[in-house]
C-alpha cells in the first residue's frame, strides 16, 4: 500500500495543477496516472487560454461572455471564480517559463476567439496545450512531486453509507500496467480526480484513445451525481479521416469556411450574420452539417476551411502546427489548398458534480478539469475556456484537498430528497436493468455491511479489484472489449451527435443496454500480467458504457434546444422550465434523473437570460 496526504488521479493539466497546488499548501502529494504526465491529452489542446489581462478588458466581461456562451446554463459562482482567478493563474504559468506567443513589446499575445467580446485568448502558437502540459510537468519535477506513471486507477475506496452524501473517500485502487500488480493508494486528506475527457464514447472524436471517462464512471458508481452529461461539444473543425483537431485559432486568425460551391456559407446562408465563422461552436457545427445534408458538402462529407489568404508568414508564426496536422493526416498543404473539416466530438461540458473548490458530495473526493462539472461551460463551452478551467479549478481542488481554507462554496452538491425535483420523463428502455455480476462490475456502495475504517475500506476495495481482474483473466472465452466498444461508439456518433431526435436517442439507449448485457460475457484474451492493454481497455470499456448511458439519458430527458444540445422535436430554448441542470445518480445501477436549478445570481449582478441572436 502507498500512502500520501493527497492523491491526484490523472497527470494532465488539471492533475498537475492540483498536485502543485496541494504541494504548495504543504501536503505530501502524489500523482497516479495511467499514462506518463507528458502523454496526457491536455497536450493536444491548441487554441489558447482566456484571461482578462489587458486594459479595456476585465473579469466581469469574461464572466458575462462565458455566461452568455453557456446559454445561461452555467452557475454564476463558478463562472465568476474562473474569470477572477484566470489572470493571476495565467501570469503564474508565464512565470514558470511557459513559452507564450509574444507581442512586439514582449508581453504575451492575445487573440480573438469565438463568443468573446475582447481578444483575451493568450496562446503559444497553435500548440498551447502542449506547452501548458510540459511547463506544469516541469514544475512538478522541480517540486519533487511523486508520480506513479502507468498506474491505471480502477476504482475508488469509498465507504458505503446508504446516503451518498454521508460517504467518505480514503484512497484509490491502482493497477500497475507494467507488472500487473494491484495496490491501494491511501489518501490521508483527499483524492482529486483529474482524469479528463470521455470522447472515446464516440466514434468520431478529437479525443485521445486514453479519454475513456474513467473518473466520471468511478465517481458516479461511488455515489457522486453526474451533471449535464447531455451537453457534448462538437468541434466544427476536425479532420474527416481521424478526428484530429484543427484549432479554432484558424478561424480566429481569419480562416474561412466554404461549401462545395465555394460559397462562404456562414454569411451567405445566414447561419451567423454577425459572427460568421467565429460564431459559437455549436452554431458552426450545425451549419456545416446542414450544408452537407443539403448536398453542398464536399464529397458529401465535409466542408472546406481556407487559410491561404492569411499568408505564409502569419500562418507560420501563429498556426504552423495546423500545417503539420493537415499534411500528416490528410495529405493537404494548407498553404496552397483549403483543408477538409467536419464536426467531431470534442468536449464534455458535463461531468462529476463539484463546487467552486472542486469538492464533491463525498467527503475527501474532489474533481477538476474536463472530468468535472463545476458548471462553467453550461450548455456550450467557449473556445479558450477549457485551459483556464484546468489551472483555476485544478489549483483550487488541490489546495482545498490539502486543507487550505478557500471560503465557503456557494454551489451545493449531492442529492437532497426534500429539495430536489425528479424527472417525469419515462425511459423507454430501462437503462442499467441488466443484473451485473459483482466480479465483472465494481462493488457498488449500497450500505450493506458498512465499513468505515480507512484502511479496511481500502483493503476491501483492493480485494474486490483483484477478484475482478482474476475473473476477467481466468475466463476462457466470450466477447472482447473491442467489439463492444466499437458498437457503442458507432451508436453514439450516429444517434447522439450534433442533431438529435427522440427516436435516435432511444435507439442509442437500446444499443447501450445491449452493450451492457454483452459486457457480462467479456473476457481478456491476453494471459500476461505484463503491460496487458487488453485488460486495461476491457476495464475502460465498462467505464464508457456507464458514461455513454448518462449522455444519452440526459439528451433524452432534456426536452429543449439549448447550447450544443439540439433536439428535433424541441426547437426552442425553454427558460421557464429548463434553467436547471440535469443530474444523474447511479442509484444501485439504475440511473435516477433529477434536477438542480441554475444559479444566475453573481457577485454584483444577476445574469438575465437573453435570446441568442446570430
Amino acid at each position: 500500500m502507498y500512502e500520501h496526504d493527497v492523491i491526484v488521479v490523472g497527470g494532465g493539466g488539471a492533475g498537475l495543477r492540483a498536485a502543485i497546488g496541494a504541494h504548495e499548501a504543504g501536503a505530501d502529494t502524489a500523482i497516479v496516472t495511467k499514462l506518463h504526465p507528458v502523454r496526457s491529452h491536455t497536450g493536444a489542446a491548441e487554441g489558447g487560454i482566456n484571461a482578462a489581462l489587458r486594459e479595456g478588458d476585465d473579469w466581469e466581461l469574461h464572466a458575462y461572455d462565458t455566461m452568455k456562451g453557456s446559454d445561461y446554463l452555467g452557475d454564476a459562482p463558478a463562472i465568476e471564480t474562473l474569470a477572477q482567478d484566470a489572470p493571476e493563474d495565467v501570469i503564474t504559468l508565464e512565470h514558470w517559463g511557459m513559452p507564450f506567443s509574444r507581442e512586439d513589446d514582449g508581453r504575451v499575445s492575445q487573440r480573438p476567439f469565438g463568443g468573446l467580446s475582447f481578444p483575451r485568448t493568450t496562446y503559444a502558437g497553435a500548440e498551447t496545450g502542449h506547452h501548458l502540459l510540459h511547463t506544469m510537468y516541469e514544475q512538478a519535477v522541480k517540486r519533487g512531486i511523486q508520480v506513479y506513471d502507468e498506474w491505471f486507477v480502477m476504482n475508488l475506496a469509498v465507504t458505503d453509507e446508504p446516503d451518498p452524501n454521508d460517504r467518505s473517500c480514503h484512497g484509490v485502487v491502482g493497477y500497475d500496467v507494467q507488472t500487473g500488480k494491484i495496490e491501494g493508494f491511501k489518501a490521508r486528506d483527499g483524492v482529486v480526480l483529474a482524469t479528463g475527457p470521455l470522447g472515446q464514447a464516440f466514434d468520431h472524436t478529437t479525443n485521445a484513445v486514453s479519454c475513456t471517462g474513467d473518473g466520471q464512471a468511478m465517481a458516479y458508481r461511488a455515489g457522486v451525481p453526474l451533471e449535464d452529461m447531455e451537453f457534448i461539444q462538437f468541434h466544427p473543425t476536425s479532420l474527416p479521416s481521424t478526428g484530429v483537431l484543427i484549432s479554432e485559432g484558424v478561424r480566429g486568425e481569419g480562416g474561412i469556411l466554404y461549401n462545395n460551391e465555394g460559397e462562404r456559407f456562414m454569411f451567405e446562408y445566414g447561419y451567423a450574420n454577425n459572427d460568421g465563422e467565429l460564431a459559437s461552436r455549436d452554431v458552426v457545427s450545425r451549419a456545416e452539417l446542414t450544408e452537407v445534408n443539403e448536398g453542398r458538402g464536399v464529397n458529401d462529407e465535409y466542408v472546406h476551411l481556407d487559410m491561404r489568404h492569411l499568408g505564409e508568414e502569419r500562418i507560420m508564426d501563429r498556426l504552423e502546427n495546423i500545417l503539420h496536422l493537415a499534411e500528416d493526416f490528410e495529405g493537404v498543404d494548407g498553404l496552397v489548398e483549403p483543408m477538409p473539416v467536419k464536426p467531431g466530438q470534442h468536449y464534455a461540458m458535463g461531468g462529476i458534480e463539484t463546487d467552486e473548490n472542486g469538492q464533491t458530495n463525498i467527503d475527501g473526493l474532489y474533481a477538476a478539469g474536463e472530468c468535472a462539472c463545476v458548471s462553467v461551460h453550461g450548455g456550450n463551452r467557449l473556445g479558450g475556456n477549457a485551459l483556464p478551467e484546468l489551472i483555476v479549478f485544478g489549483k483550487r481542488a488541490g489546495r482545498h484537498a490539502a486543507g487550505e481554507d478557500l471560503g465557503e462554496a456557494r454551489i451545493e452538491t449531492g442529492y437532497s430528497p426534500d429539495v430536489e425535483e425528479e424527472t417525469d420523463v419515462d425511459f423507454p428502455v430501462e437503462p442499467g436493468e441488466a443484473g451485473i455480476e459483482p466480479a465483472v462490475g465494481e462493488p457498488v456502495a449500497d450500505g450493506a455491511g458498512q465499513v468505515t475504517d480507512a484502511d479496511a475500506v481500502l483493503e476491501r476495495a483492493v480485494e474486490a479489484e483483484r477478484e475482478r481482474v482474476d475473473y476477467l483473466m481466468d475466463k476462457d472465452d466470450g466477447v472482447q472489449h473491442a467489439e463492444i466498444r466499437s458498437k457503442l461508439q458507432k451508436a453514439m456518433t450516429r444517434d447522439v451527435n450534433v442533431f438529435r431526435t427522440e427516436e435516435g436517442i432511444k435507439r442509442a439507449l437500446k444499443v447501450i443496454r445491449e452493450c451492457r448485457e454483452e459486457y457480462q460475457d467479456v473476457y481478456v484474451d491476453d494471459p500476461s500480467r505484463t503491460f496487458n492493454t487488453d485488460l486495461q481497455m476491457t476495464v475502460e470499456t465498462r467505464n464508457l458504457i456507464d458514461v455513454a448511458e448518462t449522455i444519452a439519458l440526459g439528451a433524452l430527458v432534456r426536452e429543449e434546444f439549448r447550447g450544443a444540445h439540439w433536439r428535433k422535436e424541441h426547437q426552442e430554448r425553454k427558460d421557464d422550465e429548463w434553467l436547471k441542470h440535469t443530474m444523474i445518480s447511479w442509484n444501485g445501477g439504475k440511473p435516477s434523473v433529477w434536477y438542480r436549478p441554475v444559479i444566475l445570481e453573481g457577485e454584483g449582478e444577476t445574469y438575465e437570460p437573453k435570446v441568442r441572436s446570430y
Partner: protein
Amino acid sequence: MSAQQQEPEEPETQEVPEDQEMSGLASPQQERLQRKQESKAQRERAADEGDLDGDAVHLKVFRYDPEVADKQEPRFDDFHVPFERGMTVLDALIYARDEFDSSLTFRHSCRQAICGSDAFFVNGRQRLGCKTQISELDQPVRVEPLPHQEVVKDLVVDMDHFYDQMHAVEPYFQSEDLPEGEEQRQSRENREKVKMSTRCIWCGACMSSCNIAAGDNQYLGPAAINKAYRFAMDEREEEEIKEHRLRIVEQEHGVWRCQTQFSCTEVCPKDIPLTEHIQELKREAVKKNLKFW
C-alpha cells in the same frame, strides 16, 4: 560562421559528410515543404497506379513477452490488414490488435503526433506510428520496438532511463526575479530562438537513433540536451542560471560526446534541429570559458 569552425578540437569527432554540414542545411521549413511535396507526389503516383485501395498491408511485427511461454523467445508475427487510403502504421497496428490478436501490445494515445508515446522502429527507422502513412513505406512493413531500449513487451520499451536523463538537466524554469502581478517580457526574437526546442514530445526517437547514446549509457542524449538548450537560451532566466545550465551540459557525458552524426535530427518527428542545438551549446560553453575535459 559555421558550427564546425567554432568547435574546439574533438579527437573523436567523425567526418561529417559535406552535404550534412550545418551551414549547408536547408531551414526546417524548407525541408518540411520539400518533404511534403515529395510525399504528396508519391501518394498521387501510387493512387494513379491504382494499387492503393483494396490491398492488404503486410505487417511484420516484433513480439516478445517475458511471461508467456511461446513469446519468451522474440519473434516476428505477420498480419495482413486491409488497406484504406490515409492509413497510418498506428491504424494498421490497431486493426491487427482489435481484429486478430488482442495481446498485441504498443503504447499510443493522441494519434496526432503530440503525446509522443508511439515511437517505433519502422522499416529500419525511428518514426511515430500515428504520423507515418503506410502508403509511403515498402512492404512488408516491419515494426519493431525502439532500438537500444529495454523491451518490456512487444513494441513497448522501458522509458525510465530516458525520463531520468530528461530530469538530469533540471528541466524547469528557475528564474527568481519575477515582476509582481504581471508577466515577464520576452522578445519575439527570443521566443523564436527557443521555439523549436520547446516542441519536444519526449518520444525517445532521437535517443534511440543515437550511436553515442547506445554506447554510453550515461550520455545525456539529444532530447535532454535540447531541453537544456530550451532553458539556457531563454532570455527570461538570469545569467547565473544559464552558467549553471552550461555546466550541466558540458559535463563528461554531456555535449562533448556528440559526434554530429545527425541521426537525431533526421528522425525527430517534430523537426527539431537537435544536432544544431547541441553544437550551439558547445559554442556557448566555450564562450563562457568553462572548463574542458
